[in-house]
Each structure stands twice: as C-alpha cells, then as structure tokens.
C-alpha cells in the first residue's frame, strides 16, 4: 500500500466528452483471466478509426509516448464497470487523469488501483490540452497535498474530494486491509440484519 502525493510527467490530451469504457478497452480484450497486456489495446478501435481517417490518435503520437497524466473531457469512462479500462490506461503508463468530469464507477475503479483522478472546468482543460499539444515536453505536476495542477509556470487548483485526497495520501486507496480491520463490527452489522432470505431452505 503506497502513498501517492504527487504525479509528475508529460501530459497526453484525449479530446471529446462521454468517452465510454468500450472505447477505452473494447470488450473483445476482456476475454482474459488477468489484466496483463491490456495496455497494448487501450483505445484500440479509436486508434484504428483515427488511422483509417488519416489522423493520429494521441496515444499513437510519438510526442506523447511516456506521458503520465491524461487530460480528458466530461463524463470520462462512462458505461461498463470493467476495471480493465483504468487498468489498460494505467498499464500504458498513466498515473493521473484530469478530466472535466468522470463517470462514477470508472472513478472508483481508478482510485482502487491508485490512479489519481481530479477535475477541472472545461475552459481550463481546453487551455491545458492545447498547451500539452504545443509543448509536449512540458512537465505537468499534480500536487495532491495542495490540490493543484501545474504546467510549467502555470498553476491551477483542481477539484478532488477530501476522501479521495486522504485515500491517496495515506495509501488507503487499497482499502481491503481497512475493511478487514475491526472485523467484529462487520459481524455485528451482519448479525442485526433483519433479512428473512429463505436461502438456507432453498433446494435448487
């Protein structure tokens, strides 16, 4: 369980709102019993579509290789609960995502694997995306203590809830140990549930 206090590195912008998890990792790559190798297929169909149209997807841009911070639009990661989506992004090398907004399950899944997520207003994001495109070598830095994102001389405050911030700073983003701690309280909760489930009698 490691503490995450900052993420430094170059940024890669992925434009567009409502980028869903089927686009981040198409379902055919979910046929696996591990998460290994998913990074090879991150945004695969979007990358193929870009190529077919004579464009280059940001994840294929030589200048963005090695980036650690992903800049994205609104409702990033909507759709399926597949953790394969943040896993694929993280295994590609991304350590933090700054977006206008996130879909809820994707956001939670990202936090669970120690990938920091924070939000910024659309206009600031657009400016930072343009900056990352113009100066791909510029170092970005997400400071989780201060809740700021800096890019060169520029520093903007990001939105990150107290719970997320403290989970990253304390290393408690990996919560299983916390959940097993004081387990007698879990047992007490379970014991007082007024369920009358009928499960014990089922003979199916």
């Amino acid at each position, binding site marked *: 369980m490691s503490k995450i206090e900052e993420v430094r590195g170059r940024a890669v912008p992925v434009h567009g709102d409502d980028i869903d998890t089927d*686009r981040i990792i198409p379902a055919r790559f979910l046929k696996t019993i*591990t998460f290994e190798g998913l990074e090879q297929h991150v945004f695969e169909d979007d990358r193929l579509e870009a190529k077919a149209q004579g464009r280059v997807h940001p994840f294929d841009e030589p200048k963005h290789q090695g980036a650690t911070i992903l800049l994205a639009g609104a*409702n990033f990661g909507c*759709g399926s*609960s597949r953790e394969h989506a943040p896993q694929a992004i993280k295994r590609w090398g991304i350590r933090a995502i700054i977006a206008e907004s996130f879909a*809820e399950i994707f956001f939670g899944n990202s936090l669970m694997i120690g990938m920091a997520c924070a939000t910024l207003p659309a206009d600031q994001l657009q400016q930072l995306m343009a900056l990352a495109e113009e100066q791909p070598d510029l170092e970005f830095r997400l400071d989780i203590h201060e809740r700021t994102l800096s890019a060169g001389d520029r520093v903007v405050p990001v939105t990150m809830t107290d719970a997320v911030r403290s989970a990253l700073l304390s290393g408690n983003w*990996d919560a299983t140990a*916390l*959940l097993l701690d004081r387990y007698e309280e879990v047992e007490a*909760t379970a014991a007082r549930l007024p369920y009358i489930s009928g499960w014990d009698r089922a003979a199916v």
Partner: protein
Amino acid sequence: MARTLFQKVWDLHAVRTLPNGQTQLYIGLHLVHEVTSPQAFAELRERGWTVKAPHRTFATIDHIVPTAAQARPFADLMAESMTAALERNCRDYGIRFFDLASGAQGIVHVIGPEMGLTQPGMTIACGDSHTSTHGAFGAIAFGIGTSQVRDVLATQTMSISPLKVRRIEVNGQLRPGVFAKDVILHIIGKLGVKGGTGYAYEYAGDTIHRMSMDERMTICNMSIEGGARVGYVNPDETTFEYLRDRPYAPQGADFDRAVAWWKSMASDPDAVYDDVVRIDAADIAPTVTWGINPGQSVPVDGRLPHPDEVPDSERAGIVEALEFMGFDGGLRVLGTKIDVAFIGSCTNGRLSDLREAAQVVAGHKVAPHVRALVVPGSQKVAAAAEREGLDRIFQEAGFEWRRAGCSMCLAMNPDRLSGREVCASSSNRNFKGRQGSPTGRTLLMSPAMVAAAAIAGEVVDIRTWKPEAVPALA
C-alpha cells in the same frame, strides 16, 4: 425522521466510517460472473484471504457463453478458460454456481430476480454496471469493478461514499406502442447520460407502480446509462407477488414476516429528496437512439438534431455521432434500413419482452436481408417461452432461437456485427464498437420495435406500421 428507501438501506448496512472518509457498507448478496471475477479470486489467493460469506455469493456465466453450440470445451479457448476458472473458484470457495447444466444459468441480472435471490431492503453488488437492475425490487444494487469484487469476496463489505437521491416521477397512461424501454430512453434523453452522476434514481409515480416487475427491471437496468449507479423502485404488492414461491424467497409464514419488513423499507411519504423530476407518460413516444450514447435518442418519427441548431457545447459530440452513424442531421431515423435484429440482453431478455416481440412477429416473415436473433435471458426464460410456443413463432418467422446469454449486447461471444452493419437492438448500449464490429452501428429500441424492424427490414413506427400479409400457403 422520514427517510428514503436508499437511506434506510444505507443506514442498516453501514458498518462504520473508515479512516479514508468513506463508509464501510455490508453487502447482503454478491453476484459473480466470469468476466470481472478471475483477477479478484487470483488476488485473494495471492494475499492469503478467503471468501468471507460464500452463502451470500452466487455465480453464473453469461458474457462469454456461446448461444448456439454450447458443448464443452467451448470452441473459443479463452471463453473455455474463463469458464474453467469460475468453476474452480466456485468449487474452491464453496460458492453456488448456476452453470450450464443447472437449468438456472442465464444473464446474472435475469437469474438473481427469477431465483428469488434479489429481495427488497438488501444491498447487492456485482461486477457489472447493469447491477442497478436489481433495484426494481427495492434493493440497493451497485455495479462494481474487479478490485471491489475482491473486497466484497474478502470482507463482504466495500468502501463507498453515499449517493444523493433523485426521485423521478412518471405519471399518466403510456400511449399504445410505448413500453418500459421507451420510458427509460426518454428519461435518459431528458436528463442526459451524465445527469445521474452522484445520484441514486428512485423511480416513482403511478405509471411505474402499474408496471410489472419485468418492466421495472428494464427501467432500473438502464439507470447507469443515465449516469446513476443505482436505480430503484419502492417495493409493493407487485414486488411481493413476484417473489412468492420463488426458489430462494422466504416460504410460508416466513414470507409474510418478510413482506412486513419489506414494506417498512419503502421511502416514507414525507421523505426529502435531493431532487425531483416529473415526467408525463403521455409525452413519451416509441423512442430510438440515433447516436453513440444512449442519451442520443429521438421519438421514432422525430428529426435528428442538426449541428447548426444545437448549443456550441454539444456540437462536436453530435457531429461525431452523426458521422459515425452515417446519418444527416435534421432527417429522421424512421425508414433506416437494418441488417441485424437482436432481441435479448439484461435489459429486455425476459419472458414478457419475448411475448411482446412474438406478438408482433406472429404470422410474418423476417425481411430477406435481415439476420434476426432472439436470445432468452436465462435457461428458465427459454423454457417458459418454449412452453408457450414462442420459439416456434420466432423460428417460423425466420428468427434464430438461441440459448441464454449476453449474446450480441457486448460481443464477447460469437454473436457480433460485422463491418458497418446496422442493428436494431433491444440491448442497452449503442457505444461505438459495442456489438463487436468497431464500425458497427446500434439503434436501441423496445423489443416490439426490434421485432417490427426485423419484419419490415427497416425502422418503423409500431403505432402506425401495418405488416404486409404473408401470402397463404406454400
């Protein structure tokens, strides 16, 4: 103090506030399938943990199951290895597995309710975003990722922050040809695909309360398409009657005691909501998606948005969707030629869905250029449909009648689109590439509308469409 069902269930299952500021929430029922669980079990072994509550954990296979030839080993080696992994995990940890031989296999969100596992007042988790379906029973059901599956296996709890509650009241009579699917597509169209982020949706109003459980499940199923991780309907007599005599429901006097408890979990009449939205059922038309997210829909006879006439903030998304779909802004989706018709999925693969579709299909033939599939949501749905002869109606019309599974909803099995095919689909997502071809196109609609499109060979308006009579004889 007056509380919503969400708050009551939350309060009952909250163990404590964790040092990370989130709540540790106890999970009453954990449903497991083959896609999002193998890595969770692997980590469990690696870290030396066990499954804390195997009696609260049930598994099935649905996503990767082939729906035509089901002999083992599956032709697809990865599908076979995922199935074998789940078999081993269930065996090792004493988890009840509804496998192909059980007669109770099916899409996880179809079998939970039909087995009577899903009950009011519970917390439910499953590694699938459509877990919101179970909220139809007045349960609070969360779609979770694999790390949370691991947490629920290892601790029967998860770390989560509370949601706000938005009450969505639908009142009035639905017009002929309008189904639960149209209601939820209409709601998502109105509130947007991210309108529900941070909320649980409580569906209420007389329209919802006249609905069957199957219809309520269709509505709750697609909550996540509107951004809401959780959706629910307060339990009532319809809920209780559905559960009576189900294999895993309480029996006899226990059932009556359970009903009394279930009733007490419904939202109090004076509960306070974070938001309330009211919708007039009469405003809802048969609804069809035209774009690449479930919020991009129109009444079947309505016009698509024109990029020149939409707000600046929406233009890029609309242009991208129109281009991908090959539609011109301002035109209609009505009359769009289809290549494939798919009836099934956790949204619309239940018996009543198949009945509605069969009613449209009976006595007609699928258009010669259309490939049409009916995929029951579970083995029990398939058996019930076959007892009623629905399989014959579909097959005589030229549909393929398949075995239970997720099938063409997400193309993790042999059922998929190819190239730029257009599919009229009763499923839940029209994302780019969702149905297995990166350039394939999906039009979401009700099962009855899919059935009509299959016969007509194009998108039709079920309110006015008259199929040509099949010439007698031959």
